[in-house]
C-alpha cells in the first residue's frame, strides 16, 4: 500500500473523487426526473383534472381546455419533457398543480421538518444500536441473546404498527406525550422513536457482529497482553471497528428514513416531505412529486457522499483504494 506522494497528489485525488460524485449525482437526478415524468403518466389520471380539484371532477370542457393551455399540457409529451428538463436545469421546479404555489417554496417549508425528524432518528438509532452492541459485548452470552432478539424484533416491526402501539401506550394509557404533532418538542418524541427503533435493529445487528469480531481479533489480544481492561479494549479499539459498517449503512439508512417519513408524518399529522409526497401522488401533482423526489434524491446522494467520506476517515484501509 503506497500513500499518494505530497499534498498535490492528495488534492488531485480529492478532486477526482468530488468530480465522480458530482457526475453520479447529476445522473441520479436526471434518471429520477425522467422516471417520474413518464411513470406518473402511465397510471390513469389526467393532470388537468388534478388541477381542477382532483380525479373525477365534473370540470367543463372550457375549464379543462383553459387549464391545459395554461400549464402546457396540450403540447406533445416529448415537448413537455424537454421543457421540464430545461426549467429544472435553470433551477425552476415549476408550480404545484394542486396548491398553486411554486414547488420550491413548498419544499422550503416542508424540508426542515422532515430533515429534523430524519436526523434526530438517525442519531437515536445510532445511540440505541451502539448501546446494545456494547452491552452485549461486555455482559456475555445472555445479554448477547437478549439484544440480538431485540434487534430482530426492532428490524422486523413496521412503522405503522409501532406508531400505533406507542400512541396507545404513551398517549392514551399513560398520557405522557401528545399523540399528534403539537408543534412542541414533546410532539417530536414519538415520531422519532417510531422511525429510530427499526433502524436501530438493523444497525445494531451489524455493529454487534463487527464488535464481537474486533474483541476476538489479534489487536485486542495484544491490547489485553498490555494489561488493558476489557472496557479499555472496547472503547479504544472495538468501538471504532464497530462504527465502520454502521457509517457505511447510514447513507442507506437515511434513505429509509425519508421513506419511513411518509408513514410517520401521516400518522402523527406532522408537516413534511413524506406527507407532501403522499398527497401529491394521490392528486397526480406532477411538479410536486418531481420536486419531492429530486430533493430526496439529492439529500440521499449528499448523505451517501458524507458517509463515504466518514468511512474514509474512520477506516485507513479504504483511504488508499
Amino acid at each position, binding site marked *: 500500500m503506497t500513500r499518494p506522494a505530497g499534498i498535490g497528489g492528495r488534492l488531485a485525488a480529492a478532486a477526482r473523487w468530488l468530480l465522480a460524485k458530482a457526475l453520479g449525482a447529476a445522473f441520479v437526478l436526471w434518471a429520477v426526473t425522467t422516471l417520474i415524468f413518464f411513470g406518473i403518466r402511465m*397510471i*390513469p*389520471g*389526467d393532470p*388537468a*383534472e388534478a*388541477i*381542477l*380539484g*382532483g*380525479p*373525477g*371532477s*365534473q*370540470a*367543463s*370542457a*372550457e*375549464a*379543462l381546455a*383553459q*387549464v391545459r393551455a395554461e400549464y402546457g399540457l396540450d403540447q406533445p409529451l416529448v415537448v413537455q419533457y424537454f421543457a421540464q428538463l430545461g426549467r429544472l436545469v435553470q433551477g425552476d421546479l415549476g408550480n404545484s398543480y*394542486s*396548491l*398553486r*404555489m411554486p414547488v420550491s417554496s*413548498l419544499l422550503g*417549508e*416542508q424540508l426542515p421538518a422532515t430533515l429534523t425528524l430524519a436526523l434526530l432518528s438517525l442519531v437515536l438509532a445510532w445511540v440505541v444500536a451502539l448501546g446494545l452492541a456494547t452491552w452485549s459485548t461486555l455482559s456475555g452470552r445472555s445479554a448477547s441473546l437478549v439484544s440480538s432478539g431485540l434487534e430482530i424484533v426492532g428490524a422486523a416491526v413496521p412503522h405503522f404498527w409501532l406508531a*400505533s402501539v406507542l*400512541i*396507545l401506550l404513551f*398517549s*392514551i394509557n399513560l*398520557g405522557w406525550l*401528545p*399523540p*399528534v*404533532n*403539537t408543534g412542541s418538542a414533546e410532539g417530536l418524541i414519538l415520531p422519532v422513536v417510531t422511525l429510530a427503533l427499526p433502524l436501530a435493529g438493523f444497525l445494531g445487528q451489524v455493529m454487534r457482529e463487527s464488535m464481537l469480531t474486533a474483541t476476538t481479533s489479534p489487536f485486542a489480544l495484544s491490547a489485553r497482553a498490555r494489561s488493558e481492561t476489557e472496557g479499555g479494549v472496547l472503547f479504544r479499539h472495538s468501538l471504532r471497528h464497530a462504527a465502520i459498517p454502521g457509517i457505511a449503512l447510514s447513507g442507506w439508512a437515511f434513505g429509509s428514513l425519508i421513506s419511513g417519513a411518509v408513514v410517520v408524518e*401521516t*400518522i*402523527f*399529522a406532522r*408537516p*413534511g416531505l413524506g*406527507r*407532501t409526497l403522499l*398527497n401529491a401522488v*394521490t*392528486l*397526480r401533482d406532477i411538479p410536486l412529486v418531481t420536486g419531492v423526489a429530486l430533493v430526496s434524491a439529492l439529500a440521499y446522494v449528499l448523505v451517501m457522499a458524507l458517509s463515504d467520506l466518514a468511512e474514509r476517515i474512520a477506516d485507513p484501509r479504504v483511504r488508499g483504494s
Partner: protein
Amino acid sequence: MSTPPRPARARFSTAVGAVSVAALLLTGCSTAEPESNQTSQTPVSGGNLVYATGDAEPTCLDPHVGGNYPQALVSTQYLEPLVSLNDDGKIIPWLATDWEEADDGLSWTITVHDDVQFTDGTPLNAEAVRANIEHLKDPETASSTGFLALEKVTGTEIVDEYTIRLNLREPDSALMESLSQPWLAIQSPTALERSKAENCESPVGTGPFIVDEWVKQNSITLVRNEDYNSPPADAGHKGPAYLESITWRFIPESASRYAALQAGEVDVIDNAQPDTIAAAGKNDSIEHLNAPRPGASNRIELNSSKPPFNDPLVREAFAHSANVDAGISSLFFDTAERSYSPLSSVEELGYEDPKLFTYDPEEANRLLDKAGWDQRDAQGYRVKDGKRLSLEFPVSTNQSIPAEVSLFEQIQATAKEVGIEINLNLLDLSSWYGALAQNNYDLVSAPYTKVGPDVLRILYHSDGIVPAPSGYFANLAQVDNPELDKLLTQASRETDPERRAALYEEAQKLILEGYYILPLYDQQNHFLYRSSVEGLRALPTVSTPTFYDVWLNR
C-alpha cells in the same frame, strides 16, 4: 306497494353511550328544534376550539373553485349561501330574505339583507350576488359543483339595490336547493377581483369566522367575526359567535384522530369510523353526532349496459344473493342503518321498498336458472354459453372506508354461494375513475352529495351516460330508460310540491324495481366531540357542522 316518504326523524343527532341528561337534551334537540337549543347553562363566550378533519386538505379554500366536501366543511365557517334548509327540508332565509319564482318559471327574483357587510367592509347587495353568479360560471374559476348547479341560469338582472333576478333557460325546481349549498356561498366581490391564488388562500365572506392563516399540511386558523349579523333563520342565537377562534387541523389517520380526541388535544373530529364510534360509546367524555349526508344513499350500482347485468333477472338475482344486513350489523357495529332507497334518509322525498331487497339465496338460484345460467364449472360458479358468471367490482379506497370494503367482501362471499363470482379490485381514486371510463366494471359504489331529489336526474337520466370531457359520467348504473328520463325531466321543472313529490316517487320506483341499484345505507357522516363542546349541530343542507352556536363548557 307504496311506502310513504320517511319522516324527518332520521335527521336527529344521536348521542351514543352514557351521556349526561343535559347533554342528551342538547344533542337531541339541537337539530330538531334549534329554537329550544338552551340548557339551564348560559353559553360562555371565548376560547379556541380545535377541529381535526380526516378529509383531504382542500387545495383552495374558495369552494367555488372545484367544489368538494372538504371545502364545504371548512367554508361553512366563513362563507354563507343565500338560503338554508330547516329540518323539514323547507327553504329558509339566510343571506336572502325573500325569493319568488315567476309564473312562467323562467326567472327567480331574490332579495338579500340590506344591513350585511363582508368582512372586508364591502356591502352585501344585488351587485355582489351577480358577481358571485358570474364568478361561478366563469371557466377561469374552474367551478365544477357550482357550475353544474347553475346550469339552467342564463343571466342576471339587477332589480334594485338589494334585489336580483336570475333568468333561466327552463324552469328549475331545484334552484333554491342548489343555492343553499356551501359551494354556491356568496363572497365579497372586492375579494373575488384578486388573483385566484390569493382568493384560494383567504376567501372573504359574511360568515361568523374569518380565515386568518393557512399553514399548508398543518392547520387553518379561523378567528371570530366581531361584526357578524347574518345567522340563518334556524340558528340558536344572534350576534357574533361564542368561540374566539377555531384551529382547523388535518389529521388524515383515523386512529391518530381519535387518539388526539381522547387525549384532549382536539375537541371535535370528523370521519369517525364504526369501530371508533363504538369505542367512544363507552367513554363518558366523548359524544357522537350522526349527520347523514343528503343526496343519494350509498348504494352499489349495477352496470346495465353490458352482459350479464343487461339481463334484469341477473340483477334481481344478485340483489337477493347479497346478505347486506348481516354485514352491516357485524362490520358497522350498528352505527349505520340499512337503506332501501336511492335517496338519503334526510331527503324528504325519499321512497323506499324493503321487500325488493331481501336476502334470499333460493330465489337468487331460481332466477339465475331461469336466466339460463344453469351450468356450473369445477369451482361451483355458474356458466352460460361457456362463460363464467363473473362480475368486476372496482373499489375506490379513497371513498370506501375499511368497514365498507369488508362489507363488499361479505357480499362477494354470499354471492359465491349462488354461483356468482365477484372480483374486487381495490384502487386509488385515479385508477378507479380510469376503470369506470373504460366501462370495465359490473358493480361499483360511488357517493354523491347534493341537496334535494334532483340528484336522481344527475345519477339516472340517460344524459348521465354521456361522459364529460374528463371521461367522468354520473349514471354509473347506465340506466337508459325513456320513461324514467321523462319523469326526471318533468320533476326538475315541476314547481308544485305535490306533483313534484309524486313524480320523484314514480322515478324511484322504476329505479328500485328495475334492480339497477342495491341500496346499502346513508352516506355516513359521523362526528365525535368532547362533552365540553356545547351547541354543536350539522347544517341541514349538506350536513357540514357549524360552530356559530358552539361554546366551550370547561
